């Protein structure tokens, strides 16, 4: 009985490995440029989560950018809980690896180009971007502001 169980587990694991092995690692440019070629196929896509996690009932939309384009990813909302940072001015978003089915024109989502994720993995954590204050710029700004305000005052006084 144990031998049969082990046999089935081995076979099942083999199928899983084989199926993930058939997925191709792609970039957003490859997906947009060769959308027909990848349509309905399983792909591996990596990039930074940008903007917002938009919850839609049990599912959610995230947008993942690899630097060239951002692609919409449709996934179960529970999966998005792995994401800590999303890319904005103040944050570098988490870098994620998505395995999912690519749709050139998704029939479920009004013809959008998207990926329906089967799995998501955070491969690099995001962080808050630290920026040093530009004190030299601030000084120039204050001087220019004083000069500009003086001229504005002259205009006001002379009623020009």
């Amino acid at each position, binding site marked *: 009985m144990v031998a049969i169980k082990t046999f089935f587990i081995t076979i099942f694991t083999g199928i899983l490995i084989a199926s993930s092995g058939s997925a191709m690692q792609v970039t957003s440019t490859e997906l*947009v*440029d060769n*959308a*027909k070629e990848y349509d309905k196929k399983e792909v591996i896509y990596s990039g930074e989560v*940008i*903007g*917002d*996690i*938009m*919850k*839609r009932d049990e599912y*959610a*939309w995230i*947008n993942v*950018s690899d630097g060239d*384009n*951002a692609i*919409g990813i*449709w996934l179960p909302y529970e999966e998005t809980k792995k994401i800590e940072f999303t*890319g*904005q*001015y*103040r944050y570098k978003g988490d870098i994620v690896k998505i395995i999912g089915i690519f749709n*050139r*024109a998704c*029939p479920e*989502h*009004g*013809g*959008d*180009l*998207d990926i329906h994720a089967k799995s998501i993995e955070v491969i690099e954590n995001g962080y808050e971007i630290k*920026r040093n*204050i*530009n004190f030299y*710029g*601030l000084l*120039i*700004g*204050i001087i*220019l*502001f004083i*000069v*500009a*305000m003086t*001229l*504005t005052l*002259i*205009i006001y006084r*002379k009623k*020009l």
Partner: protein
Amino acid sequence: MPGNADEIKIIGYYIGKVINILGIIQTIPLITSLIYREWNISIVFLISMSITLLVGSLLIISCGFAKRKKIGWSHGMIIASFSWFLGMILCAVPYYLSGSYGSFLDSCFDVMSGFTTTGLVLIQDLDHVSNGVNMWRHMLTYLGGQGMIVLALTFLVKGTSGSYRMYVGEAKDEQLLPNVVSTSKAIWYISGSYLVVGTIVLWITGFFIGMPVDRSFLHALWVFMAAWSTGGFAPQTQNILYYHSLSYEVITMILFIIGSFNFALHYAVWNKNRREITRNIEIQSMSITATALTIVAIAGLIKFNVYPNFIASFRKGFYLLISGHTTTGFMTIYAKQFFNEWGNVALFAVIIAMLIGGSACSTAGGFKGLRMGIIFKGFFREIKRIILPDSIIQIDKFHHIGDIVLEDRHLRSAMLIVLAYIATFMIGTFGGISFGYPLTSAAFEAASATGNVGLSIGITQPQMPNTLKIIYIFIMWAARLEFMSVLALVTYLFFGMRKKWSR
């Protein structure tokens, strides 16, 4: 006239007023960046605001005696066109200093694209751009849609006899009220009211599609500004596709359709003259061209099996065609998908829609529905003339706020501007081809720049040749001001130089 010091001072004085307005409004992105603790961006806006006020104030002080001088037609035209040019350079300073652009030329390109409500962009890494810069980008397109001169007339230039000439120089010739300053105020009153309502509606929608409260508010405000101004800017690289929401698409579409209407029509409707909506020649003309071109575009998409079903074909085809027709430029697909997937039939429909454009005296660009309507009526008048006996005197009318008898001068003026647009479109297309882009792509991008649309097939990007960027900047500027004021400026500079050289 050219070279006359007094006249240069008249022009300089009013340009100074416009420039000062551009300086004052930079307090809004400055405050935004302070609220969101974007300290370096607030420093950028402090510097650029001060530079802009400095330039404007110096112009006013040095040309101050011209305050009570009479403004001629040529002055009005030159004030309008040069204000836009100088405004472009000064408003590009915060863009460039923010570090979001590869060069100062790219910054100027995006400012002109915003002013002219085009929506083509060269900004880099938009998804990480600060709230302050995003506020400035969308404010520029909102301001450009209503008109920079309109803003100056509303707040800084009071009781000037030549105000109307500056107003016309900005390609707005409808007087909603007897006084042009009151007209400018009415335009801002209409736009401001829609701003409040539109932002609230988009804010609520953004919240229900899963965005946090503060970000959905900012996105709502910015997307409204871009939609109403038929500008096409958005705070994310994916444009409207970012939201993955039918409701967001429907609301933005309603907003940019309303935004593309003539301000005179808005004013008539606000004064309970609702029948004007169905009777107005521009609405009739746009309804016909939009319906016909939508049918062609969707038929093209179905023929090439671009989308899996009719609903998807309609959703994408209709949205993008109307986005092009109203010269908005909001996108729900990737730029390259136009070229790779859409096929020539649908692309042709979108190119034509972009060239026709929205209404006269609106935020939209293109030939304008009014001119298309007049040309259409004129065409049928000529056919009737051929068919009917000479003894019959026919009087043709068109309805635009009131009934107007169709005269040859209407037809001539409409044809002249349409020909100027076609010539500009051809220059832009030739520019694209000469840099090695395919004809369809070059024509598409040129139509987008000429019609101040903003849909892109992928040519407009930071890596494109600088010469092509300059060509597109010129096209966007000249087309938005409907050529006359830019031609007046070029002529003025040309004769001014010639006179100087001959001395």
